[in-house]
């Protein structure tokens, strides 16, 4: 559905007062767009910072892996290594294994943030078109409504947690797909 509210406003006969009001709203929308730009930049910076931090952690873990492997090698050459040392090394190796796996959180978070940045870009476009319509009450160009933009956003989600958060925010039920999908599945 195209944006109707502002289209109706701009199509009607307007007094000088009406034009002033439209101009004020347009200026406000531009301020909102600036705010939006700042938020997008901040979120992008968060995504980049977590990516850098996660990569550095992964690099350190990689170095620790090699050190643990060396320790394993040294103790295997020793005729009777202390059992406590062996157990300690084994625990370290296990911990490193899981730490490597946990680093995947960053990829999940990055994708969530990138989609928010993209959505804010759509909001920006919406505000821009609205401001243009207010300033230039010519023939209106159909723009996607906020509801349509939200639907488009929904279709772009790649995780169930995104879909659920979206549905919760809109106070609606998440469509049920029967049983929850398995985290690991062989075909």
């Amino acid at each position, binding site marked *: 559905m195209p944006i109707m509210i502002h289209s109706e406003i701009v199509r009607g006969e307007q007094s000088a007062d009406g034009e002033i009001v439209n101009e004020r709203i347009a200026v406000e929308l531009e301020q909102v767009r600036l705010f939006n730009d700042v938020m997008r930049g901040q979120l992008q910076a968060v995504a980049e910072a977590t990516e850098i931090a996660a990569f550095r952690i992964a690099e350190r873990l990689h170095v620790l892996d090699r050190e643990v492997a060396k320790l394993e090698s040294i103790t295997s050459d020793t005729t009777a290594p202390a059992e406590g040392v062996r157990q300690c090394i084994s625990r370290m190796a296990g911990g490193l294994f899981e730490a490597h796996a946990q*680093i995947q959180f*960053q990829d999940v978070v990055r994708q969530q943030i990138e989609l928010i940045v993209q959505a804010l870009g759509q909001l920006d476009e919406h505000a821009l078109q609205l401001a243009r319509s207010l300033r230039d009450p010519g023939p209106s160009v159909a723009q996607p409504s906020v509801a349509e933009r939200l639907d488009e956003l929904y279709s772009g989600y790649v*995780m169930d947690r995104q879909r659920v958060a979206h549905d919760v925010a809109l106070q609606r039920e998440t469509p049920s797909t029967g049983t929850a999908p398995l985290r*690991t599945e062989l075909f």
Partner: protein
Amino acid sequence: MSTVMLVDDSATILLSIASILGKAGYSVEKAPNAEQALKKFNDGVKIDLLITDLNMPGMNGIELIKEVRQLPSYKFMPILFLTTESQQSKRMEAKAAGASGWIVKPATADELLNTIKLVLR
């Protein structure tokens, strides 16, 4: 020693998953995108298992495996998706394209290694 081709646009994922696989005794070939992975396949690099992300800039994971399945040497190679996507419809699309299994990120080391063992059996 089996060789695993790992494809993901996240450098962190490549490094961390490669570390897990390396520690478990696998040889790992890494590619930061589907195009580079496909080049390695076209070059005939020996690969026993492909693990790929789904959503990547450029060619996505499903497009990649469709291409790989066209290559006679890799027609029956196991292919796993390691992705944040959990939707059933995407899994079915991947299965139709020739995938052997699906793992949702973040996966534990056990989930990952157990699944790899199963498909390489």
